[in-house]
């Protein structure tokens, strides 16, 4: 299968995962929301979140084990940029109530205008940021 084929099949599996969680538990598969619910527990509903996240890591691990040649680790990316990016992603996802999965996969699936606005915003800002980092500043590979 080509890269596009894997992308399409992987995307389909992500959609299926979101379907299973909504059908079984009535929950939205937004990774940042699920993780924030573990980090900042509001009610007594931590267990399913932990299991979803463990499943996510295990599922990815299964694929990496089956396809060890498919991935070449990035070398030499500045740690300061990783930390800066992490802070912004964590802060922004909580402020905007969702990330690529919650607003993208689930929100668009529910035909939410709010999620469409969020997706268009973070996609265009990310494209602009990549342009600045790669072509104006020239750091970060």
């Amino acid at each position, binding site marked *: 299968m080509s890269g596009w084929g894997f992308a399409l099949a992987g995307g389909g599996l992500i959609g299926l995962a979101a379907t299973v969680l909504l059908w079984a538990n009535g929950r939205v598969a937004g990774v940042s929301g699920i993780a924030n619910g573990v980090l900042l527990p509001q009610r007594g509903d931590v267990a399913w979140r932990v299991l979803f996240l463990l499943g996510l*890591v295990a599922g990815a691990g299964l694929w990496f084990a089956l396809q060890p040649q498919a991935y070449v680790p990035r070398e030499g990316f500045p740690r300061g940029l990783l930390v800066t990016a992490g802070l912004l992603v964590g802060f922004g996802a909580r402020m905007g109530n969702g990330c690529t999965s919650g607003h993208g996969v689930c929100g668009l699936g529910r035909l939410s205008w709010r999620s469409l606005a969020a997706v268009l915003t973070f996609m265009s800002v990310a494209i602009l940021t990549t342009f600045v980092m790669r072509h104006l500043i020239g750091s970060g590979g």
Partner: protein
Amino acid sequence: MRELIAALVAGALFGVGLAMSGMTDPDKVLGFLDFFGAFDPSLLFVLGGAVTVTLISFRLVLKRAAPQFASRFQLPEARAVDARLLIGAALFGVGWGIAGYCPGPALAGLARLSPEVLWFLPAMLVGALLHRMVDAKP
């Protein structure tokens, strides 16, 4: 118990999908976001594939009175496109565009003990905590 198994299964499918799709490779993600450079459009198929499924399946699932293993659907209730949403999404986009990680793929990177996500993930958690602190102020 059944709802916990369902969460585990959903998480595992999600993780396989992320890794299979290439989303867990930050170079590939930045290649996708590099619209004005060496643009790699393949990741459009990830979102396209996922949303094609959810557009159909969510409609069918939400016709049911309740989920299979829970008493009710718990969907986000906010409707407003407000400054908080757009600023949050914009900050998220800056972070995504800098390093090429969003939360799901960064977590998936734990599966191979990627040194990068061992820097990114703690910072992401601190970012969420920082927002809670700012948010809690009157």
